[in-house]
């Protein structure tokens, strides 16, 4: 296959592009963006993509600059004819036309595409759907597209380098046939068979073996289910059997036993009923007898009781009269005591009233003495007040005599004095001292001559005349401020002296002394005033003081009056009282108070005694009342007893009359007791006979029996219900024919197991065969790799420095060629470890070798295309590349080189095409 001509229309930046290819090496040069890659892509798609394809690959061809669908026309030589291919990519309506020499009519549509595929040696021309996946692999072994020179072609998979075609060509060259078509066919079929059965992870889903396995698993499950069902059926049957047995036991044993027990109980019940009736009869006979006995006993008892009561009453009466006498005596005693006590009380009362009078007088004396003392004290206070007032007035007069000089005024005076002094000092400092130390002429200062050694101090301007001819006028202190200073001084001095004059003092010091004196006086005055105020505060002022004195006077007179009037009444001799009975007024207050206390004490003692005697008197009165009451009561009860006594006597008489004498009654009672004992014996005998088997007990036993029977009945019902359920279950399970089902399941399982085993054996046998085939094929692989690697080496020879250096690659019948690399200095270097440049060169050599090998199937020629494929190759090595290409052309291959740097290739190019710059 050899490319002859290419025509492009509306492809990216190409409006029209026409190229003729050389049969040898065609160099297409162009700057960047000149459309080299567009050209390559257009040719590639033109050859391998269907005209009806759409999508990004077609859109990419479209031109932005020119309207119209992309058109690609190629003419090439193949299968001994010259073909012209024309494709217009316009989506679904895209058209293709293939015309060849010797063809009667040009082909179009799918027929054209099919023939094109055959001419190019590919399966099919790809449509849009597979384009993205398949298109890049098309002629990847012949055309090195831009940017792919560094990739290892062999790593991309057999479909990228037409492995089958390559093997076919290599086998044709081999001395003996490596693998017949039948070998290949059988191997492929085996591969398909094994693949249909196994995946990398195990048995393939839905494969025959898988189905057998599934079938076997299902059969196994079914067998298990059948076994379970059989077991379930058998266990249900056994359960039913046991239940029947239990039911049988209950109805045949338990039920009759209960029936028998019921009969026994009912017999017992009848007997007990009869016994109980007899017992009732006896009890009825016993009752009147017992009643009679009770009656007699009560009569006897009443008789006894009345007799006893009579005796008791007699005794009570005697006791009562004795007690009465005693009481009367004690009552008279008590009355006597009351009288004595009353007398004592009256005496004490008299005594107390005397003491009361004397106490009153003493209190008055106390008060009088106190009043006198108060009056004296008031007098003293009054005197003191008078004295203080006088002192205060004296001080006020003194104070008023002194000028009122405040501290502030004094301060102003001081300031004034300081200013005077300050002015004087300043004037002094400005003064000029004129000292005549020596003079041979007369010196006159301000008209006054000055002698040698004389000094003169001057503060104002002055004139100095020395002799006749010299006159100085001197201004001390520059002659300006001094006058003013002097004026200030005078003014201040005047102010100062005036102030002193006003204050009637001669100096500042005197003024200060005066002020101090005044302050002292003022303080004294305040002190006196405060004392005066203190006196007044204590006695409500002067006026109240005199009032008080008057009141006291009145009270004193009043008291003295009272005392004299009462003194006669006092009969008591005491130191307090003078001989005439009047109160000794000369006694002092303390003595009076002590005496008063003593009187109070005595008074209290007498009062206490009175209280005690009063209490005693009250008690005696109460006792008298009590005794009186008791006496009355006693008298009354004696009367009652006497009445009762009479009544009992009558009662006793009546009883005797009614029932006869006591011994008779007792005899009757004895007889009655005997018949009672007899009947009682009969009753107890019957009771014993009945024993615990009371009717009640039998009834409860019967009730228990009822309950038992009911329980049994319920249990029987339950069991029979269960039996029904079990029977139903048995029948249900039985209807599934568990034994038959089990047998069938077992047969099915065995059959499935057998089939699975057969299928598994077959699959393993196929695997085994495939392995043998693959082993045999692997042994053949060397026969494929050797010629190819030799071819590569022949291209690369100049680069392989050492004699033993060579290219290496391995072959696997399934995965194709692999492990491309170089053997250098005895070491294998993998493709990925090679330098960028070396990768490009090895890639180039590999492609040339493959094309070399494949060309036999393509009319001994194939176009190799390198699009900027040696950009990493250094200028030294480019020589080798050129040599490789030359060699390829010599071997009949067509080489197309596209490069932006055409220089190195120009020397070997058979034809150079320069694409116009953009």
């Amino acid at each position, binding site marked *: 296959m050899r490319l002859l001509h290419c025509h492009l229309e509306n492809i990216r930046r190409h409006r029209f592009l026409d190229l003729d290819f050389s049969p040898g090496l065609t160099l297409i040069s162009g700057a960047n963006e000149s459309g080299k890659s567009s050209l390559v892509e257009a040719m590639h798609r033109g050859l391998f993509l269907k005209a009806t394809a759409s999508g990004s690959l077609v859109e990419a061809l479209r031109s932005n600059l020119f309207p119209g669908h992309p058109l690609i026309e190629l003419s090439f030589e193949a299968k001994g004819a010259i073909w012209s291919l024309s494709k217009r990519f316009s989506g679904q309506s895209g058209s293709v036309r293939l015309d060849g020499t010797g063809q009667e009519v040009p082909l179009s549509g799918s027929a054209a595409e099919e023939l094109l595929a055959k001419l190019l040696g590919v399966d099919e021309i790809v449509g849009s759907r597979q384009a993205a996946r398949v298109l890049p692999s098309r002629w990847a072994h012949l055309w090195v597209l831009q940017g792919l020179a560094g990739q290892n072609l062999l790593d991309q998979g057999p479909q990228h380098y037409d492995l089958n075609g390559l093997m076919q060509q290599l086998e044709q060259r081999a001395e003996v046939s490596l*693998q*017949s078509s*039948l*070998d290949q066919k*059988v191997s492929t079929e*085996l591969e398909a068979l094994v693949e249909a059965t196994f995946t990398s992870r195990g048995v393939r889903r839905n494969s025959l073996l898988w189905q057998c396995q599934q079938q076997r698993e299902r059969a196994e499950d079914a067998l298990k289910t059948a076994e379970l069902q059989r077991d379930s059926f058998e266990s249900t*049957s056994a359960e039913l059997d046991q239940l*029947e047995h239990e039911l049988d036991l209950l109805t045949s044993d338990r039920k009759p036993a209960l029936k028998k027990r019921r009969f026994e109980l009912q017999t017992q019940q009848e007997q007990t009923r009869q016994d109980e009736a007899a017992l009732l009869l006896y009890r009825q006979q016993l009752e009147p007898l017992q009643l009679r006995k009770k009656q007699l006993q009560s009569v006897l008892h009443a008789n006894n009781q009345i007799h006893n009561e009579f005796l008791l009453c007699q005794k009570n009466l005697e006791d009562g009269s004795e007690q009465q006498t005693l009481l009367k005596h004690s009552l008279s005693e008590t009355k006597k005591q009351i009288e004595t006590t009353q007398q004592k009380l009256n005496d004490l009362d008299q005594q107390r009233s005397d003491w009361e009078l004397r106490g009153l007088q003493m209190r008055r004396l106390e008060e009088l003495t106190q009043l006198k003392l108060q009056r004296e004290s008031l007098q003293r206070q009054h005197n003191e007040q008078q004295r203080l007032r006088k002192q205060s007035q004296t001080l006020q007069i003194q104070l008023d005599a002194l000028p009122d000089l405040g501290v502030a005024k004094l301060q102003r005076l001081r300031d004034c004095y300081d200013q005077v002094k300050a002015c004087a000092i300043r004037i002094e400092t400005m003064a000029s001292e004129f000292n005549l130390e020596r003079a041979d002429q007369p010196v006159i200062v301000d008209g006054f001559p000055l002698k040698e050694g004389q000094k003169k101090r001057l503060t104002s301007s002055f004139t100095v005349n020395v002799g006749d001819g010299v006159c100085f006028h001197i201004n001390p202190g520059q002659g300006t401020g001094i006058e003013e200073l002097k004026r200030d001084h005078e003014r201040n001095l005047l102010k100062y002296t005036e102030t002193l004059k006003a204050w009637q003092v001669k100096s500042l010091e005197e003024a200060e002394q005066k002020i101090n004196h005044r302050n002292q006086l003022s303080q004294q005055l305040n002190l006196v005033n405060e004392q005066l105020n203190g006196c007044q505060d204590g006695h409500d002022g002067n006026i109240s003081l005199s009032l008080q004195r008057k009141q006291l006077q009145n009270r004193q007179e009043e008291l003295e009056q009272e005392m004299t009037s009462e003194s006669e009444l006092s009969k008591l001799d005491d130191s307090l009282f003078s001989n005439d009975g009047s109160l000794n007024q000369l006694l002092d207050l303390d003595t009076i108070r002590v005496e008063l206390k003593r009187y109070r004490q005595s008074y209290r003692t007498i009062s206490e005694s009175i209280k005690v005697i009063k209490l005693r008197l009250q008690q005696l009165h109460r006792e008298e009342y009590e005794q009186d009451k008791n006496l009355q009561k006693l008298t009354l009860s004696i009367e009652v007893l006497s009445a009762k006594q009479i009544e009992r006597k009558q009662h006793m008489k009546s009883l005797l009359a009614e029932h006869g004498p006591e011994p008779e009654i007792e005899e009757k009672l004895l007889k009655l007791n005997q018949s009672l004992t007899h009947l009682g014996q009969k009753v107890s005998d019957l009771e014993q006979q009945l024993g615990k088997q009371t009717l009640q007990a039998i009834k409860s036993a019967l009730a228990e029996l009822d309950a038992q029977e009911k329980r049994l009945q319920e249990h029987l019902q339950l069991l029979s219900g269960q039996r029904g359920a079990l029977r139903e279950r048995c029948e249900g399970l039985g209807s599934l024919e568990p034994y*038959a089902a089990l047998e069938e399941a077992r047969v099915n399982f065995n059959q499935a197991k057998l089939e699975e085993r057969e299928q598994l*054996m077959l699959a393993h046998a196929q695997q085994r065969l495939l392995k043998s085939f693959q082993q045999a094929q692997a042994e053949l692989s060397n026969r494929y790799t050797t010629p190819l690697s030799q071819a590569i080496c022949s291209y690369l020879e100049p680069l392989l420095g050492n004699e033993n250096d060579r290219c290496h690659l391995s072959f696997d019948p399934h995965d194709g060629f692999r492990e491309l690399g170089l053997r250098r200095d005895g070491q294998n270097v993998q493709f990925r470890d090679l330098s960028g440049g070396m990768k490009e060169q090895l890639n180039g050599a590999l492609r040339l070798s493959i094309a070399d090998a494949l060309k036999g199937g393509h009319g001994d020629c194939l176009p190799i295309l390198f699009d900027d494929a040696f950009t990493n190759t250094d200028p030294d090595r480019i020589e080798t590349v050129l040599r490789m290409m030359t060699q390829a052309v010599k071997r009949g291959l067509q080489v197309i080189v596209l490069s932006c740097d055409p220089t190195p290739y120009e020397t070997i190019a058979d034809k150079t095409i320069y694409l116009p710059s953009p």
Partner: protein
Amino acid sequence: MPRFLHTADWQIGKPFRNITDPHKRFRLQQQRILSVSRIAAVAEEHNVDAVLVAGDLFDSSTVPSAVVMEVLEVIGSMNRPVLVIPGNHDHGGAGGVWQRQDVQRQLKERAPLMQLLLKPEPVLLDQALVLPCPLLRQRDSEDPSAWISQLDWQDLAEDCPRIVLAHGAVHGFESTDYNQDSAGQSERINRIDLDMIQHGQVDYIALGDWHNLKQVGDRAWYCGTPEPDRFDQGDQDQRGQVLVFDIDRGTCPIPKSVSTAGLHWHNLRVQLRTTSDLDRLERTLQQRIGSRVGRDLLRLEINGQLSLREYQRFDALIEVLRTQLLHVRIKGTCHRRPGQEELLAMTDRSEDHLISSIALQLQGELENLELTKSLTTEQQSEAELIELALCELHRLCSESSLNN
């Protein structure tokens, strides 16, 4: 002299689920009922006084009502006493077939002369005293005949012949029910101790449970099943009959076997190595079955080795038999391996280098393995695998060659 018919193990209602074809399965089931008709004919022909069924009249408690109805109809048609004890398959306890209400109703309506003996107590007939040993459970560890040894023989009729009717294995001889799980057989269940009941007190012991004819004491007999239900275990197996015997008190009866089988169960064992072996097999089958259709069952135990073509012929033969017979069961394996010519067809291929080398290699491996005297299980399966691989290779080659 009274005459009785001794039979057992009818196992009516046996499902035969191992027969996949429902039609054929039905025929097998139907044959069992037909065999009861044949027993009725024998009873009539020999004019027996009563028919004694020693257990397992039904196969299970789940026999369909229609089948029950059908077989009771036949029993009713016998028109003479039929004494039946329940066996382990049709035990008399709750959940057993005899407790089913439909069965009890049918029994009254259709076979009024049939006596189901559920209690271990003497049953006096006009001509004999029957001592039944019914099984009331499927598995009972107690001897069902134990009650007989407790009997006070003085109370029984002096001159009446005494017949024990029992079902189960006996001491010293145990039946093997090869349809049951092997685990069930080791249990000592339903075991009858004959020593306890003989001593001249009984005149005949009619036993059931063992499906072949067998005498197990001077007066104790297993009658076998009247219609075989499985392949025989050897030439000694006598199946498909009933026993007819005359009896008197104090005599030792000699029962007579009368055939009642309707189906033929063949159990063959062949070695296949050559074409002549196949020829011989075909001849044997011709002799035993001939052109009979639908009345035979075949169990074929095979071994040996056939070439692919021969194996194909064997396969075809079996395929025909499967259609013709009621059931064909193949046991064992006959190796299938390319014969000399077939092998040459694979190895002698100068063009197909891979195929010939692989075929040779496999053959070599197989021969190496076969040189070993006793193969381990692994080696055996390896050999089987290689064999199969060779067959597969042969198939692929032939198919691919044909396609070419």
